[in-house]
């Protein structure tokens, strides 16, 4: 049983104003049944480091071609102190010959990425849902999420939006999932502004109509979510007037973007983010501009060699600010080409994860994230769930014989007991450009209730 913390422990710099905000949004009569509580855990020292990072982000918007000046020193340090890299060997001077690493390396030996001597007392663990493969427990320290806000603020500013952080709710994260953690939190970095995370599933609320009432009451500066949740938000017809919408996690189609922009009268920012390094790039409709100044981005060919600007390949990253996970040439599994304009870096033609909603045998729609969560306990390194146009399912994974009965039970629970399901071994041709796309559906515009 998880020991509950007090708000003073969740927010080491808790102010009376933030305490009031937490109470107001937790206890509103139309509030959902929140199922979690958490804070930013930011100490005075931590806040200083977040502010210093903010200054660094403001200063370094442009990035000249070639290796950034910090890379040799950082990589040299990691080659010495990080067990995984030390064992592999190589020299920082020969950066481009260092072998690229992948998600499978992080899965196999997460401990080997923690530098020698790094204290573990402020370690936190974030379990990914595994929308791109096996769930991954990513270690981080409390400043990492607040630094995410720094980068988000910077990306919003580039889109002409100022995230002020003010009394009230600065950020509202909406989800549309079978299960999600929901809570009221806040941010010391945003001067004590509130942060609310809700799930639009009606049974998470006392009355379905409370959703519109509560979201209107929150009146957030910015709403974040994935395209599936945004579609639900549109259907709810909540009269929100945020300064911006921030879409993450899944690829945003041009059609949905247009609809969101015209409904909410604000820019829609598509953020390319991953748990391993948090936000990497953002787009307001065109190419994705790379945001963090402390991440070196390369485009690699299938042998791990860097490709010149304009050539399409796999996005690989080095750097970041999570010192429990220093990354050297980490292959993200996503593909794009690098282009530069005015000293700024952009990812062109970035292929994100397309939102997939399956149609269950009982006529319900089931978002892929719910499938990813349900399959989590099987810890599959890769899998593909493909719904054919006739509604039947094909599941592929590396060792189907080990999981066949558990798989059927889990999938029937999510997709209905009458699904037609076949299970096969994952083949080499399922790797598209080296990446296995886990969710696919040929069912056009599935209709039906989500819950």
């Amino acid at each position, binding site marked *: 049983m*998880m020991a509950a913390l007090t708000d003073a422990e969740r927010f080491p710099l808790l102010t009376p104003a933030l305490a009031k905000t937490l109470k107001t949004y937790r206890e509103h009569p139309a509030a959902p049944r929140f199922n979690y509580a958490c804070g930013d855990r930011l100490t005075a020292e931590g806040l200083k480091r977040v502010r210093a990072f903010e200054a660094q982000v403001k200063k370094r918007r442009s990035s000249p071609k070639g290796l950034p000046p910090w890379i040799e020193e950082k990589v040299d340090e990691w080659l010495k102190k990080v067990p995984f890299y030390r064992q592999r060997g190589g020299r920082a001077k020969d950066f481009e010959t260092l072998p690229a690493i992948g998600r499978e390396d992080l899965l196999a030996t997460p401990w080997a990425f923690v530098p020698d001597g790094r204290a573990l007392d402020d370690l*936190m663990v974030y379990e990914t849902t595994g929308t791109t493969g096996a769930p991954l*427990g990513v270690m981080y320290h409390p400043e990492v999420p607040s630094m995410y806000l720094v980068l988000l603020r910077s990306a919003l500013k580039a889109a002409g939006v100022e995230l002020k952080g003010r009394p009230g709710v600065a950020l509202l994260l909406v*989800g549309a999932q079978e299960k999600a953690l929901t809570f009221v939190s806040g941010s010391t970095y945003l001067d004590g502004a509130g942060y609310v995370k809700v799930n639009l599933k009606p049974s998470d609320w006392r009355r379905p109509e409370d959703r519109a009432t509560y979201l209107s009451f929150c009146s957030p500066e910015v709403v974040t979510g994935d395209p599936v949740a945004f579609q639900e938000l549109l259907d709810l017809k909540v009269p929100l007037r945020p300064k911006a919408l921030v879409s*993450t996690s899944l690829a945003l189609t041009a059609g949905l973007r247009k609809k969101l922009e015209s409904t909410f009268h604000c820019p829609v920012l598509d953020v390319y*983010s991953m748990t391993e390094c948090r936000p990497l790039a953002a787009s307001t409709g065109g190419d994705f501009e790379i945001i963090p100044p402390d991440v070196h981005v390369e485009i690699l060919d299938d042998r791990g060699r860097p490709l010149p600007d304009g050539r399409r390949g796999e996005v690989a990253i080095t750097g970041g600010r999570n010192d429990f996970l220093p990354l050297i040439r980490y292959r993200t599994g996503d593909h794009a080409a690098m282009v530069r304009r005015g000293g700024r870096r952009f990812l062109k033609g970035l292929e994100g994860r397309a939102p997939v909603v399956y149609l269950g045998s009982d006529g319900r729609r089931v978002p892929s994230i719910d499938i990813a969560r349900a399959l989590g306990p099987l810890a599959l390194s890769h899998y593909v769930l493909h719904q054919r146009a006739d509604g039947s399912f094909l599941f592929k994974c590396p060792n189907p014989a080990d999981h066949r009965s558990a798989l059927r039970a889990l999938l029937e629970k999510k997709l209905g007991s009458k699904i037609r399901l076949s299970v096969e071994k994952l083949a080499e041709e399922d790797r598209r450009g080296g990446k296995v796309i886990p969710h696919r559906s040929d069912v056009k515009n599935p209709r039906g209730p989500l819950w």
Partner: protein
Amino acid sequence: MTFPALPLLTRRLAACPPAFLEAPRWEGSGSLNVAALVYDTLDFMGGPPAATTALAPYLGPLEKMEKPSTAQERLRLTALACWLLNDSFFRDRPDLAPAAEEFLRSGWGELPSILKARDAVAVPERREELARRLLKALDLRPEGETPAQAEDRLGALDSVELRRVMEASRQAQERAKSVLEAMRKKAAQEAAAQYGRE
């Protein structure tokens, strides 16, 4: 330049008289007189006679920091090296005497804290290591080997390096264990708020 045959040296070590493994003479106790052995060995090699003051390292701990048990092993290993240097190959070799004297006096490093003298007699790899260490100190190598081969072979036998590797491996295992344990514990605890979905 001629080099000694390694098997002759290792066989010589294996046949070392048990007296060389006795307790070194030290503050009135012990029977193994290492200072006398060193004196006689350097004389056997044709080097200049060792001054009485130069024999101090063979009479007890090198300094206060040296543990008595380590000093005892160092002195026993010194005696074994003297036994090797009394092989006919080293007779009347004043050219080798200064390096031999230096090795006997200060060439042991961490080895006495790791290697027991009795193992340097009883265990084939440790016999070979001691013989090779001595040859290296004298700028020699086993007959029939190139310098690189000799270096490689000693590297593979080096007890100090082996312990360092094992210690590093033990520390890495301990670290992996504590990180995994912390991960398991922290995954079950409340974490800091995530402001977005990845």
